[in-house]
Structure formats: structure tokens, C-alpha cells
């Protein structure tokens, strides 16, 4: 095992004509001289929120807007009202911003993460949104378990408008400023989909069949 490691590194260095790897700083300096453009990225002439909503819709996601976090339970109720939930429960991600809210009885909210595999709908808190692509950013951790992003049929993400940034790069800037990369960061753009049957787009392949973002602010 470690022999293969040594051999691969030896071959890499032989191919590159050296015996010692340059430092990360030397490498970074080389990269800087190579990248002379102004970081080509999509641009848009609307505000960030409009771009976010437009891209989210283009990815078959939906959204609603409330002015304060306290209105989220009502917005969830409105969203679920006309949907066929087949008696499956709606569960809360263990995030204090959600668990501290006043949830009406008739929504039958389940707060027990251990039951997550039976939930039809999961409600989670988005860490950030990306306007460029209409994506929600979900880093893993005790308040944001990864599997909740994928197991339920319906995924509801509560996102503060102030947390919407223009580009993905800003997500890494903030995450790395706060500490290490979490185990997983899911950047989610619309519901699950596949085109593997005759290149026909079909939603709800393995992950959620719908993604609904409740924008707060």
C-alpha cells in the first residue's frame, strides 16, 4: 500500500523532472500568473433575489416569501395544503430556528430525527443561497443532517434572503472563514431528476420530487 503511494509519487516526480514537490505557496504563485482573466461568470441585470428565484424556477423548484421567521409555519401549511401527502408525516430538521417556532397542531410535525426515513416532507434551514444558479447550500452538521436533503419526497428549505450571495465562491469564503469544511456540503438546485430513459427529463429520480424554498425577509 504505502509502496504504491511511494511509487506513484516517484513516477509523478519523474514525469515532472524533480525529486521534491514544490511548496503550496510556490504552486499558488504559478497559478496566479496563469489566471489572467477576470473570473468569467454569468452576469445578470436584475437583483440577486430575482436571479435566485428565476434560476430556482428554471430548475423546477418553487418558492414563497414571508417577512419573518415566525410566519414560516403558516407558509408551510399553505404549501402542504393542496398536496397529496399520503398520510406521510412532515418532519423538522433539528435546527433551533425551526424547533423554537410555534407549529400548529394540525400540521402534525414530527421532531424526532430518528423517524426521518418515514417522513414525506422534511423542513430544513438553508445555510446560504446562490443567486447565479438558484441553489440552496446545505452543509452537514447536527442542525442539518445530510440524509434529510434526499430521503423525503418533498424538501422544504427555509432561507434568509440576506444569506443569498451572488456566486458559489462566496459560499467557500464564508464557510472557510468560519472553520473547516463540514463533512458534506450539498449545493441543491431544484428537485431530483433523471434523463436516463430516452433523454426525457423526469423529476423525482432518487431524491425529492419537489423542492420548495421559503424565503425569509
Amino acid at each position, binding site marked *: 500500500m504505502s509502496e504504491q503511494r511511494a511509487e506513484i509519487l516517484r513516477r509523478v516526480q519523474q514525469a515532472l523532472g524533480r525529486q521534491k514537490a514544490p511548496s503550496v505557496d510556490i504552486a499558488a504563485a504559478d497559478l496566479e500568473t496563469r489566471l489572467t482573466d477576470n473570473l468569467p461568470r454569468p452576469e445578470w441585470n436584475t437583483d440577486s433575489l430575482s436571479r435566485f428565484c428565476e434560476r430556482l424556477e428554471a430548475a423546477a423548484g418553487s418558492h414563497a416569501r414571508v417577512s419573518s421567521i415566525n410566519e414560516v409555519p403558516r407558509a408551510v401549511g399553505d404549501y402542504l395544503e393542496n398536496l397529496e401527502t399520503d398520510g406521510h408525516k412532515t418532519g423538522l430538521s433539528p435546527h433551533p430556528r425551526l424547533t423554537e417556532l410555534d407549529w400548529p397542531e394540525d400540521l402534525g410535525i414530527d421532531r424526532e430525527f430518528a423517524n426521518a426515513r418515514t417522513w414525506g416532507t422534511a423542513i430544513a434551514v438553508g445555510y446560504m443561497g446562490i443567486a447565479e444558479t438558484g441553489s440552496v447550500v446545505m452543509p452537514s452538521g447536527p442542525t442539518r443532517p445530510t440524509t434529510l436533503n434526499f430521503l423525503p419526497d418533498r424538501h422544504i428549505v427555509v432561507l434568509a434572503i440576506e444569506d443569498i450571495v451572488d456566486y458559489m465562491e462566496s459560499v467557500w469564503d464564508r464557510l472557510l472563514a468560519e472553520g473547516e469544511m463540514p463533512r458534506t456540503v450539498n449545493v441543491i*438546485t431544484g428537485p431530483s431528476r433523471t434523463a436516463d*430513459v430516452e433523454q426525457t427529463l423526469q423529476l423525482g429520480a432518487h431524491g425529492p420530487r419537489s423542492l420548495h424554498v421559503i424565503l425569509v425577509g
Partner: protein
Amino acid sequence: MAVAEADFRARARKALSDEDLQSALAKAKGGFVDKRANAILDLPEFEALRERGRQIKDHTLAHLDTYLEQFEGNVTRQGGQVHYALDAESARETILGICRDAAAKQVIKAKTMAGEEVGLNEALEAEFETVESDLGEYIIQLAKEPPSHIIAPAVHKTRAQITELFDHHHHQKSGGPLRETPDLVDEARGVLREKFLGADIGISGANFLVAETGTITLVTNEGNADLSTSLPRVHIAIAGVEKLVPSMREVSSMLRLLARSATGQQITAYTTFITGARRPEDLDGPEELHVVLIDNGRTRMLGDEFREMLRCIRCGACMNHCPVYSAIGGHAYGWVYPGPMGAVLTPMFRGLDSSQDLPNACTLNGRCQSVCPVKIRLPYLIRRLRDQSFEQQITGPFARWAIRTWGWLARRPALYQQLTGLMRPALRLFGRGSARRVPLAGAWTAGRDFPLPSGKGTFQQQWREKRGEKRT
């Protein structure tokens, strides 16, 4: 997977007369091309982005030792393990060893081309219940076929064939009515959900490896890679050493290129960044993370003129825009990498002597290079393989003799012109305007008529006459 490059011509012929395949290819053809074209409209500086992609990959390859060590250090620090495999066999053994150590019974796989490359499925299936979770991969696993496209592995299957496969494997029946796409997708979702929940091991590839953070990047639209890497106890990622990029900033640029080039999206539904194993405070996620980095011929390419092929990010744009691929599909290429990128990689990884048709079965029309997100000079590399083939006498003796004889003649213009001057009137005996058959031109006339020489003589003969010059 068995290597069968040598039968390229026979497979291509069969593909051309396979009606199901042709109908599937016809459905796919325009879709990929149009979607990519639409997706880059949103990014007017796409050409500058391609140049950036090329620079990022070239830089990384030139500092691969630095970034390998940095990546390994960060994965380890975050509770993961990095393994190295020189070749396909040691990659399989490493992965089987991890599965055995975990006392695994069930393995769920997300699509990995590196896994295909090392023949991982056959090895796993011999010991563990192994299920592919990407819908396309699942379909071809049921059909016991290799993928025919690197991002749409079942692109060659029609809905009727998929109906038949699902009826047979899920319901033990056959001959049922054609089923609708939502019905088929839903059924696979149900079957595979059980597999996700029951698996001990999840295996994925990696679209990018980020050195600065030790992060594995995965892109999918189905969410299958995410379930595969978050539900089982153990996650194994297999990737070529060339998948590295320096930092999260660069990976962001590369993702813009990949999504647009591959599926014509601005971003895939799920773009996932995995760094290490489950943390103590996490409520879910695998306890173990293993990253298996494979060489399998890559370090050799790093040291020669084929290094730029290591820039490849496996988007499939080259095959989507290749008229040969769209005529014969992926299976004709005989190994896991089809199309233009396969015409370079297969000879690199498997040897040119068993795959010399691949670099030849190309018109060098250059469209692949013009859409490649990292600007790989695919036609140049393909032509360089022809040079090697000629040099190493892999090109057959008759072909070599023919081309050398012609070359000898062409370097003697006077003799050349005498001969062509004599051939013209002879050829014109075979028809008027064009001929259905001409001796020694059977390959041409198999599918088209042969336009015969027009006018009163070669251009040079007539030019001399016109200028009143005398032949010397």
C-alpha cells in the same frame, strides 16, 4: 470488462444496422448539442472560461506531487484514508479489502468511470450484492452491458427495451405493454430505495478532488450519489490522480464548465462536496471514508506529449459532438471510454496494438476540440497515435506500402503528372459523369457513386496548353 477493441469494424457495422440502437442514438443526438449551445449563451465569456479551465488543469498537473500530498494530508486530518493503486488489479484489491474489513454484504454504487476502467463491478459482484444506483447504470447492469456513454450510460437503450428489462427483473414477466417514463423511473426509485437503506458500503467516483481542503466533489442530477455516500457505514471514492484541483475557488470554475459541457445545465441538481468522515457531532453520514487514487497509466501520460489528455474532466461533450460516435454509439469503441476521448485513452491505457482502429476511425474534423471545456487538442493527439502506429509498424504492411509508394510518387511531380495524365482518360471509360463501380474503389462505391474526372485533361496539362508552353 473484457477488452474487445480489435473487433471495432465488425462492431461498427453491427451498430449501423441495429435499428433499436439507431433510433436511440437519433433521439439523443440533437439533444446534447442543443442543450450545451443554449447553456453557454448565459455565459458570454465561455471561451475565457475554457481557457481558465485549461490553465487550472495544466497548473495542477504540473504540480501534481504538491497537490497529491496536500490532498492526502487534508483527507487524513478529517478522518478519511487515502489509498494508492498503481494499476487496475490493485485498485480492485484495495476496494475489495475495505469491503471485507467492513464485513460488508451489500454494496451500492454511484456511477464511476474510474470504477469501470478498473473492472470494479465484476470483482464486487463475485463477493457482494452489488447494485448500481444511477438509473442509467442500473438499466445496463440489468442488461449485463457496459455503459455506452460516459454521462448517459444507457443512451443506447429504447424505452421498449427498458420496459422489457424492468418487467423481467422486477416482475418476472415479459411481453407486457410499453410503459411510460414516469412509471419506469418510479419503479426504479422504489426498488433502489431499499438497496440504499440496506447497503453497508457506498462507492462513488469523484468529479474533482480539492487539495486545499481534502474535498471530493460529486455532481449528479438524481441524488443517487448523495444517498450512496450518506446512508451506508462506509464510503469509498475511486478516482484517477488527475482529478485534483488546487482549491474550492478553482473547483467553482470547473463546475461551471462541466455542467454546461456535459448536460447543458448551469449546475446539476446536486453538487456535493465531501470532506472526510462523519464528525462526532453529526447525526448521519458514513463512519469511514476511503479515497482510492489510481494511476493505471496516468503517470506515464504525465511524462509524455499526451499529458494534456489528463486535463479531461469526463463531460462527454466530445462524443456528443462526434459524428462517428453518433453513427455507431459507444459500444463499438470496445472499452469504457468511447468517442474522441476514448480514441486517445483506450490506446493509452490498453495499448495501441489492440486498439489501432480507434484513432483511425476519425475524420479529424475537429469539432470535439472546439467544444472541449479544457481545450484538449483531441485531433492532434489522435493523429499522433497514428504516427506511433505507423512508426511501430502497427499499421498493416499493405497500408504502409500504399502510403509510402504514393508518397514516393508525389515527391516526383513530373512522373506523378505523367501517370495521373494517363489515368484520367482510362478512368473516364467507366461511365459518363460518374460511375457506380470503378476497379480498386470498392470502398468508395459501396455507398456512393464515383465522380469521374471532368474536362479535357489535368489542370496542369490544360494550363500548359493554354500558355502555349511545351512539355519538357
